[in-house]
């Protein structure tokens, strides 16, 4: 039995893959024993440490600034500016209770969730149609969608702003909810196409024979199997929305409708020398939701990032 199975080329390939994967995953294998610890310290650990410190320092500085009392902020040479002797939460208090910050946070959240949801629905349908229904021209439509991903918002915002005016959406959240999907749909479609391609055809054929419609197949078979892909797409799209700046800056003008990134840049910069504390607190609180989301879904995030590139 085993012998016959082994002769099948497919099975051999599968066995080879199984045999290969532990060596790849188990990093103690390979040639790493050739490296001694002192050598590795110099060639790997020290450079890595320096890069990580540089990458993380701005966040540390943001945090320290946001809990420093005002007089310490402006007195660099009095003590050690990298440490705080008397931390204060005044900046956060000011931010959360004496400014519109909670409104901005809510706007950002609302816009991001709506735009992401719309884009995912549209992308699931489009990706399914391109990979599985294979209508005439599906390949070229896939290519066009990829090209759409390469069109940057910086060349669209001026004509879009006139269009937004004509549609009467200016200074409403809908201006953002409807324009963000143009950034998200190409990305999500491309990502989901990759996921849908990995789902075996046979499942779908069985369902078709049993009389399921395409819609039922999508809802009952494809979507449940593509949940990890959907989570990746959702998280990445949500981050992109939260991050978006130029559309929010151009299409929203009144203070209570702003999103966090635009509000931070325009509302806190008032020429006051004491603005830094609340500015940093605002930046920190504005990043927090994304960092928390990221902490829970690191793997999905990385697969979204690399999946979109690999295709």
């Amino acid at each position: 039995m085993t012998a016959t199975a082994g002769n099948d080329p497919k099975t051999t390939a599968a066995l080879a893959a199984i045999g290969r994967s532990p060596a790849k995953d188990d990093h103690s294998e390979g040639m790493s024993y050739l490296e001694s610890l002192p050598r590795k310290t110099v060639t790997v650990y020290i450079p890595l440490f320096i890069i990580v410190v540089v990458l993380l320092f701005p966040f540390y500085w943001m945090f320290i600034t946001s809990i420093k009392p005002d007089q310490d902020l402006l007195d660099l040479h009095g003590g050690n500016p990298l440490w705080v002797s008397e931390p204060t939460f005044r900046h956060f208090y000011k931010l959360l209770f004496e400014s519109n910050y909670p409104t901005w946070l809510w706007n950002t959240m609302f816009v991001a969730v709506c735009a992401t949801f719309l884009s995912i629905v549209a992308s699931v349908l489009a990706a399914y149609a391109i990979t599985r229904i294979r209508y005439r021209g599906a390949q070229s439509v896939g290519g066009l969608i990829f090209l759409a991903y390469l069109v940057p918002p910086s060349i669209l915002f001026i004509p879009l702003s006139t269009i937004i005016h004509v549609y009467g959406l200016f200074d409403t959240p809908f201006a953002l909810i409807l324009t963000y999907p143009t950034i998200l749909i190409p990305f999500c479609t491309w990502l989901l196409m990759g996921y849908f391609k990995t789902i075996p055809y046979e499942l779908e054929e069985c369902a078709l024979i049993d009389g399921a419609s395409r819609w039922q197949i999508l809802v009952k078979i494809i979507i449940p199997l593509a949940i990890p892909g959907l989570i990746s797409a959702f998280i990445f799209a949500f981050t992109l929305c939260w991050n978006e700046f130029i559309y929010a800056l151009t299409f929203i003008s009144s203070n209570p409708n702003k999103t966090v990134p635009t509000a931070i840049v325009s509302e806190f910069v008032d020429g006051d020398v004491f603005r830094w504390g609340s500015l940093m607190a605002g930046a920190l609180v504005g990043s927090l939701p994304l960092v928390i989301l990221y902490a829970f879904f690191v793997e999905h995030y990385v697969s979204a990032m690399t999946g979109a590139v690999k295709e």
Partner: protein
Amino acid sequence: MTDAALARPPARPPVREPTAWDQLKVNRNWLGFWFMLPAMAFLVLFLVYPLGKGLWMSFTDARIGREGRFVGLENFEWLIEDSDFVRALVFTIVFTFVASAVKFAIGLYLALLLNNNLPFKAFIRSVVLIPFIVPTVLSAVAFWWIFDTQFSVITWGLVKMGIIDRGSPINWMGDPFLAQCVVIFANIWRGIPFIAITLLAGLQTVSPSLYEAATLDGATKWQNFRYVTYPLLTPIIAVVMTFSVLFTFTDFQLIWAMTRGGPVNATHLMATLSYQRGILGGNLGEGAAIAISMVPFLLAAIMFSWFGLQRRKWQQGENND
């Protein structure tokens, strides 16, 4: 009980011709059309149409609140003679080139470092990605504060190390050249994680047995990298760098949050200049013309990486013969 099972099944309805409605429901092309409809509606209304409209506007003298008149190439002729525009164009190219090159070098180096057998590897990898997660504007604001003219922590560090004198602080954001360096640095800082993590994903697909074989054949570390890693990584490098160049070239938020194009317009990128002229100045036509002048450069970047990829395929094809 058995009655139900024994009862004759109802007579089958006669086979009918497919109606137009059935065609719409079942025909492959129509089905595809229905499924594509939402995505296409968004992309046509808010991407293709504005792109066309932007092209049209760049040939008009449109202002805010007034439809423009067709003026031909006047906007572009005007721009070429505008020293601010030329300066922005040159800085955009320098910015993109320097930032992308450094990002690529450090990103690849970081990816190679992370590809080693490390303790807490997954944790380090997640930490490295944080600059990419945090909204650009918010980290740009942090850089703005780090490089503040009066209270810069960098200046403090340099003073402590005795490199500069306490009485003469460095005017980071006030000096045109230094401001340019600072925004390039911030862009590099923000871009490294993306490049490093995507290249790391590419590195992990390279089978270790290739390195073992090469090492047995006497290859040095550098040769291992040059003749094994690099060729296998070329396709992913091409894609990653296309994205990187594209997003660096069209960067807006970093500059806007840190310098707004100042001091003396030294750090204007084309995108920020287009915003300043088009939206703040109200000259929509001119702003659109600036934005449209980015397109040839973007196409060049895409073509460059596309042919990079093609050459790769062609080489592989040749090897297979």
